């Protein structure tokens, strides 16, 4: 191992990051650990009274932040919602409004 390579390997090990051969990633779906909700400037507010459970928002959310279970829409997952507003724009029943995110 060249000096440079050896020191790089040592640095990687020190950080506790030992790469798999071929940089293979062995934990499917692990981006889940990445909470992208911190990006949000606007927050979608869901009005359950107006909601008809049509699932349009569920289908178009690019961040899987609107869950569906047994045909019913669940609460928005703010760990991942980036506040794009697609759900608000696509909900034909006006059941979603956008509010400024308070931090």
């Amino acid at each position: 191992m060249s000096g440079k390579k050896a020191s790089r390997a040592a640095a990687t090990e020190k950080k506790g990051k030992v790469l798999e051969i071929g940089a293979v990633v062995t934990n499917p779906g692990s981006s889940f650990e990445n909470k992208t909700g911190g990006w949000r400037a606007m927050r979608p507010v869901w009005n359950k009274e107006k909601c008809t459970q049509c699932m349009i928002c569920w289908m178009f959310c690019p961040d899987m932040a609107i869950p569906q279970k047994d045909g019913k829409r669940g609460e928005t997952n703010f760990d991942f919602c980036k506040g794009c507003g697609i759900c608000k724009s696509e909900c034909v029943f006006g059941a979603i409004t956008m509010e400024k995110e308070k931090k």
Partner: protein
Amino acid sequence: MINALPERELFAPGHSACAGCGAPIVARIVLKIGGPETIVCNATGCMEVFTTPHPRTSWKVPWIHAAFENAAAVASGVDRALKKLGTRDRTNLVILGGDGGTFDIGFGALSGMLERGHKATYVCYDNEAYMNTGIQRSGATPKYANTTTTPAGRSVHGKTEFTKQLPFIVAAHGAYTATANVAFPQDLADKLKKSFAFNGPSYIQVFSPCPTGWRHPTDQSIEIAKLAFKTNVYPLYEIENGILKINRKPTQATPIEEYLMRQGRFKHLTKEEIADLQQHVNADWERLLKLEESGLRIF
């Protein structure tokens, strides 16, 4: 209709696509229809970068990162390997590439895969430019669009060429060919099902808005995708056994201006340029209608 799509999610959140990006919606639908027995070969581009920030991944199915230009070649090898293993029939093989990786740099590999007749589904998420490296023009970029390599200046107003008609080039190889749009998930799902059932190569080109590169508010991605359909800018059709079918027609075509003016990349257009694009869109649409009406086997 939308409820008919499976609830299962094989695509995990926490990816780093820009807010409002269309590409993750494409990936989600592909996996909803492909299911757990899907293998994905992904060309370099936004989709690959935002789904696999090392050491994490959004994919819950086997996924291979190819280079920018060779995703279809990698998938060709996977197809052969699966045949050898005897598992080809129960596996759905998908290639995902951006329009740059598909129309331009990966075009040779795609053509080879089609010509050799590999059973695989090539899905191009078409955001109409090389987005991951900062909005450079591709063969899919529309005429007059402002990109970093075709800037809208005083004498030249964006890209000077029309879009390459890739679906027709693909169809000429004998592949099952279809266009689709993120705003019409059920139509995309139906086409994916058809392609998985087809014992040969398939190509599905999906209109996929990029708020960052097209310069529109993030909440408008789906509205703009619907307008691309309503204006006939991006017709929904398929070419199966060489015969063209338009899957959905707008009741009355919306003037193209409504689509263009929603996006910063077209803000600089003059009345004449809008008319030029409108004429081109009309001519393309007429041609599609005539081809469909003729019932001719075009390839």
